[in-house]
């Protein structure tokens, strides 16, 4: 685990040697739409070290994918605008870097895979072409050499018959195989960090487990940093080292995975866990989180979770809770964080 003990979102940039592999600090992003300005990210901070898996957990609209796209520098602008914060790779600020420099970081240092591999892969090029492309354009590798690498990569992600399948098109692959091909593509330039945006959401349950195992294995073998974006607590428990929980464009809780599962420090995290079906509690009713995720055009005052929170008190309606440090690498943005933990 990390030796850096630094409060997330800390204002003082650490010296380059001790800097985390990838760090997001106090990120603000808004979407300027016809209906008004949606504040999609309102101060998101997290960091990741080499060899670490960080899970980013949240409902749709919580800002987890937008954070990832801001890190990659592939936000659609307009409507999206970064209005503050910083993204640092090995201590180097990316948000103010030249477009050329940002492009060099993409794929090479930080790579990304997407939820729906069918639409994320280009339908009119073969899988092989799409893997080789990066090697040829970015590394100047010869056609034959790139083809060889592509086959190796498909082998690596355990696609059978790789030699034949490099010549096939994405639509000729099954869902799981497509996601494997996408992973192979993201590994082509040997990235230091891989961001996986809901990599298993579009897949069958059995295939989901295989893909997660593959990701975990690759992460281990290559000592990569893996940012795993998901809304599925079950996925998180098995592979993540640390978890950040997002709600309405904010991080409401972060902790290492054991601690979080043992004693969630935020009512939202707690509610998420109570809505998971559990075999040992068979027969008891599942609780759901009442209400809907907030409208980002009109985020509630005070704590954005208060309209849905069972513990909401008067001050939750007016005061935005600051992250409370509960331990090393552990924060919770709740007025009652300490009570929650002591209650167990």
């Amino acid at each position, binding site marked *: 685990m990390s030796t850096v003990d630094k409060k997330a979102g800390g204002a003082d940039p650490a010296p380059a040697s001790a800097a985390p592999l990838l760090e997001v600090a106090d990120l603000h992003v808004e979407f300027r739409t016809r209906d008004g300005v949606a504040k999609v990210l309102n101060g998101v901070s997290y960091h990741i070290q080499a060899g670490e898996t960080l899970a980013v957990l949240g409902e749709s609209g919580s800002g987890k994918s937008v954070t990832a*796209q801001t890190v*990659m520098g*592939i936000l*659609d602008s307009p409507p999206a605008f970064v209005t503050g914060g910083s993204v640092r790779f090995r201590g180097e600020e990316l948000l103010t870097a030249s477009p050329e420099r940002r*492009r*060099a*970081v*993409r*794929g*090479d240092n930080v*790579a*990304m895979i*997407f939820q*729906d591999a069918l*639409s*994320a*892969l*280009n*339908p*009119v*090029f073969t899988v092989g072409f799409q893997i080789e*492309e*990066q090697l040829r*354009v*970015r590394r100047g590798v010869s056609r034959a050499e790139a083809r060889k690498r592509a086959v190796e990569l498909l082998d690596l992600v355990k696609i059978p018959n790789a030699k034949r399948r490099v010549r096939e*098109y994405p*639509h000729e692959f099954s869902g799981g195989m497509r996601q494997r091909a*996408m992973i192979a*593509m993201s590994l082509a*330039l040997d990235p230091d960090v891989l961001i996986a945006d809901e990599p298993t959401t579009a897949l069958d349950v059995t295939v989901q487990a295989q893909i997660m195992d593959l990701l975990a294995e690759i992460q281990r073998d290559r000592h990569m940093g893996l940012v795993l974006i998901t809304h599925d607590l079950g996925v998180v428990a098995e592979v993540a080292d640390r978890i950040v929980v997002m709600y309405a464009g904010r991080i409401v809780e972060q902790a290492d995975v054991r601690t979080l599962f043992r004693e969630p420090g935020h009512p939202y995290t707690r509610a998420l866990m109570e809505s998971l079906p559990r075999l040992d509690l068979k027969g008891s009713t599942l609780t759901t989180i009442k209400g809907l995720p907030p409208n980002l055009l009109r985020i509630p005052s005070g704590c954005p979770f208060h309209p849905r929170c069972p513990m909401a008190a008067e001050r939750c309606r007016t005061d935005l809770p600051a992250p409370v440090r509960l331990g090393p690498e552990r924060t919770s943005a709740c007025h009652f964080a300490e009570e929650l933990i002591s209650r167990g």
Partner: protein
Amino acid sequence: MGRYVLRRLLQMVPVLLGTTFLIYVMVWAVPGDPFAGKCGERACPDAYITEMRERFNLDDPVIVQYGKYMLNLLSGDFGETSSGVQVIDRIADTFPVTLRLALVALVIEAVIGITAGIVSGLRNRGFLDSLVLVSTLFLISIPVFVTGSVIQLVFGIQWGVIPPTVSSKATFGELIVPGFVLASLSMAYVARLTRSSIAENRRADYVRTALAKGLPQRRVVGVHLLRNSLIPVITFLGTDLGSFLGGAIVTEGIFNVPGVGGLIFRSIQTKEGALVTGLVTLLVLAYLVMTLLVDLLYAVLDPRIRYE
């Protein structure tokens, strides 16, 4: 694929027969004497009329006439005109000119249309986008004969920049202005099709993936975006080539291009039935083959399309 082509070719047969029969009936079953005025001021001698009626099988029922005509066509005999010229020779004289005109128009349409479409599709809602939208609206609304007449009047007659009409050689250079006029409407349509296709694909997931791979912007647009966006445009251009061949009557008329359009227009008015039916058969055939080729081209361009 082979079976699909075969099935499509078989489907073409009734369509071709239907279209040519329609034209044949309309041309030959016209009330009135088909040979009126063929012999100058005087009425034609009886011997001539008898010979002609026999040559064109005019005394048979229409359906039999048509059958005999099609059988001759199959053996490559297009018949001859009332003045005894082989129809096939007239077609051979004019067809290359029309083909040249169609190709010139196609190139102009593709280059200008696609360029305008890409520029406007990439700058959604900018000045250039509005400019393209407004100018295509006008191109679509101004009838071709107005565009042609005005260009001829201004550039050819008043300013003398171009020769107002095309010489009998009809070289590629001379055909640029008529080609532009012929292409003007489709050009606007190609620009709009490209624009909407680009605008639709610009936000596609695979474009985002290409960006995330750290590819240069040029390559993301030039390879990933264009390759997908141009599929419908290219197939549109294909069908357009087919329609240019038969649709150049107005343009050829204005610029006096010695092509199929002018020939067919004169033949209809002078009731040269053999010429009209022969030309229409060829044009319809060219159009049908073009649509088949376009469908096959589609499968080549988009690997997701498979014909059994």
